[in-house]
């Protein structure tokens, strides 16, 4: 069965390490994960990413064609990201996915 990684997981992990990213960055990570893990599909489309931004207004925002970390957000601490987002990734692929997203 194909494992699916939601765009909010991708955004949370990438923005944990930096202040902003572009769609190009997201697509690059998607391709890297899918190349390394055969049965994984990463949901990065404009529609899914904007839905994630909309659903996490305390974490992500959109401006100047980039996705930004909301200034002063306290939700990017590791335990929150791990408990809230990363636990949804199946265990057997979790560490590989997180490593690619955060490196």
């Amino acid at each position: 069965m194909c494992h699916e990684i939601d765009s909010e997981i991708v955004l949370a992990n990438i923005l944990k390490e930096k202040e902003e990213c572009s769609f190009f960055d997201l697509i690059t990570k998607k391709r890297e994960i899918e190349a390394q893990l055969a049965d994984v599909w990463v949901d990065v489309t404009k529609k899914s990413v904007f839905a994630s931004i909309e659903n996490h207004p305390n974490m992500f925002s959109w401006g100047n064609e980039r996705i930004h970390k909301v200034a002063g957000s306290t939700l990017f601490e590791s335990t929150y990201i791990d408990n809230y987002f990363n636990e949804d990734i199946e265990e057997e692929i979790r560490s590989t996915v997180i490593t690619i997203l955060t490196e």
Partner: protein
Amino acid sequence: MTGTKLFRDPVHGYISVPTDYCERFIDHEIFQRLRRIEQTSMRVLYPSAHHDRFSHSLGVYYLGQLAFSYLEENSVDLRDKAILKNSFLLACLLHDCAHSPFSHTFEKKYEQNKENNLPIRLFSCLNDESFSEDFSNASPSPHEIVSSIVAIETFGDNIKKSGGDLNLVARMITGCTYSSVGKDIQNCIISLLNGFSIDVDKLDYIIRDTWASGVNNIKIDERRLLSSLLIRKNKDGIYKIYFKKHALSVIKNAIDARNFLYEWVYSHHKVEYEQYLLSTSVNKLLELESSNEEFSKSLFSIDSLYSVKQVKDYCFYLPSDGDILYFLKKNIHNIPEAQELITRKYKNKALWKTKAEYTHYLRGIDDKRRKNILKRAKEKLNLFFNEKGIPETTVVKEIKIKLIALPKDEIFIDIDGEDASFTDLFPEKVSSGSNLYFIPYIPISGYKFKKDLVGILRGLQ
């Protein structure tokens, strides 16, 4: 052009299509297949919502015609742009030409099927480096990528004969704007079909889904809206699409009508449950057939749209909703969810039905704890049912209502020749806040314990 044919449409009235377009595109089996692809998943809720991708495609073509003719009338710089106009009208007609069976529910399967080689296959069709560079910024949905591929591979010659440009058609279908300078008029037209907030695709499905369901939604005066369109340079000298000020009320209505459908219809608890049954059934079907590699490769395959493929007892050709249901019926005894779906004898019922109810029941609980409740709800509720001798069939579904939150400077208004941003005029439309929640679907016989069950969930830390 050799005359026109008229299609009677219950939403827009008569839709006039050039006979050439009928012969070259509409009469083709790929386009006719769209008659067998349901437009939405809401039929479970509204029994008359039988409309399909075929009528929607004609509707988008109609609105595209209307929009472009008003743009030509209102914008000096858009006259004599025949290739742009032809490409736009063809993209409107073909924008969903390879949509997945059951539309959005399974479109991701086309990307998950590595044999389809998305999006590389699209890049190869176009052989244009700038397209592949701009593609990431567009991040199109799988059905848009597949529809572009099929439009070019199947209809490429006819698109050219009809005066269209392949690259432009693909860019319009995928919403892939140019990053290079001097292409801002093209970018305006791309966003008129596949934009962020208001485009002819969205307009048609909002109006059509409202009509087909019979739901009392806000009415959109599409003629007033489209007649206000113009393209002109902004203060930085870049061409942008503007709405004249007389359309302000209709823009608000269009945004509210779309959000109404997403909040109350597409995310209705019954629709969500049926979607769960359908997608779980198909995933189980693919698992059951996993020893037959050709099966999963053929069911969601672009090549199955082109020619008949025989895999053991199954025939794959122009797969549509009916094929999926047929495969599920063949496996009805092995897939309980398929049985539930086909007989419509649901085992479960929503513990709460709306986000409002969820907010009420989980009031005073922060996001972090709500997520924890979501994760542990199934186990805890089933434990309760086990003690009561009730079947442990609980399903917990996370719901994400996709409402429009307008980024700043997305919709521009022309006020007597001056620029204004819609979000500056109506700042309340910028964001509607988080719309994440979840619904526990519990065994029907357990519903009488609703208060106890809510108490169990509220007590989870």
